[in-house]
């Protein structure tokens, strides 16, 4: 994957497959410590303890449609090649949490890329799931909680043309105001 935002989309896909109804994504740029930190947690079915140590092995997957699982191994590689780290923790039956740290200014760190595209795809394409996205830069943050949006929409579709325009414009402005990663 060439962009961190693509890794995020892909890893969130695991949580969706695990039946999560809420996914929290936090991305923090810590310039002082030269770290870019990504945290993703979900309330899906979790990973049994005995499997946890194997999930970043590319030959480990529980899917039956393909024999190699790539998502987590690609993300952990992407983090480790920048001098960072990758940790995943899960409680079988209640959810999964992962933290990936990247060397912010490391030459091999993939750019964030089109985070707006990733968020739009998740919000519009998975209306049945709630997403909470927090982007932090220093002491500033941008928070998006789809529960607030859905409460306001009272059943109007997230695929509605005007809603798509609204989301795109507001997310774009919010992320731009916060500053780039």
């Amino acid at each position: 994957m060439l962009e961190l935002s693509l890794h995020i989309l892909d890893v969130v896909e695991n949580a969706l497959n695990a039946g999560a109804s809420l996914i929290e994504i936090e991305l923090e740029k810590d310039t002082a410590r030269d770290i870019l930190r990504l945290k993703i947690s979900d309330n899906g079915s979790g990973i049994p303890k005995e499997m946890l140590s194997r999930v970043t092995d590319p030959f480990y997957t529980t899917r039956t449609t393909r024999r190699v699982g790539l998502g987590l191994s690609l993300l952990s590689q992407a983090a480790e090649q920048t001098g960072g780290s990758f940790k995943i923790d899960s409680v079988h039956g209640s959810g999964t949490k992962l933290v990936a740290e990247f060397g912010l200014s490391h030459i091999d760190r993939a750019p964030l890329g089109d985070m707006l595209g990733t968020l739009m795809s998740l919000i519009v394409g998975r209306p049945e799931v709630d997403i909470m996205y927090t982007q932090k830069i220093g002491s500033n943050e941008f928070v998006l909680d789809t529960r607030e949006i859905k409460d306001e929409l009272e059943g109007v579709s997230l695929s509605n043309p005007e809603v798509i325009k609204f989301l795109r414009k507001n997310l774009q402005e919010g992320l731009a105001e916060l500053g780039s990663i």
Partner: protein
Amino acid sequence: MPKLKLDDLKKIKEQVLKDTSLRTGGATAKVTVHMGTCGIASGARQVMDALMDEVSQSDRQDIAVTTSGCIGLCSEEPIVTVELLNEEAIRYHFVDPNKMRQIFKRHILEGEVQDEFVMAKGSEHSN
């Protein structure tokens, strides 16, 4: 701190509810972009982006845009499934943003299946 303008959303909702109360409502078209690891790595997000852009430029409120997981046909990604009311489902493969826009305009809006990109129809689906 940047914040979403929820008031604007309220106005949109009120307008939509006013409009749709005059019509029967409900989705008549469902478009699914498959988002497995292989799909994402081969451009499914850009396809989804083009699709959302087309929907937002149309004034059709009866199109549902969704994503779903891997269907195990990695070498043919990105894959998009179009389901129109009372028609058989059509699955397209090797979709890119331009093909997506063509599929949207010709198939979804005008009902003309884009045979050149079709992978499978109706019961031919392996999934």
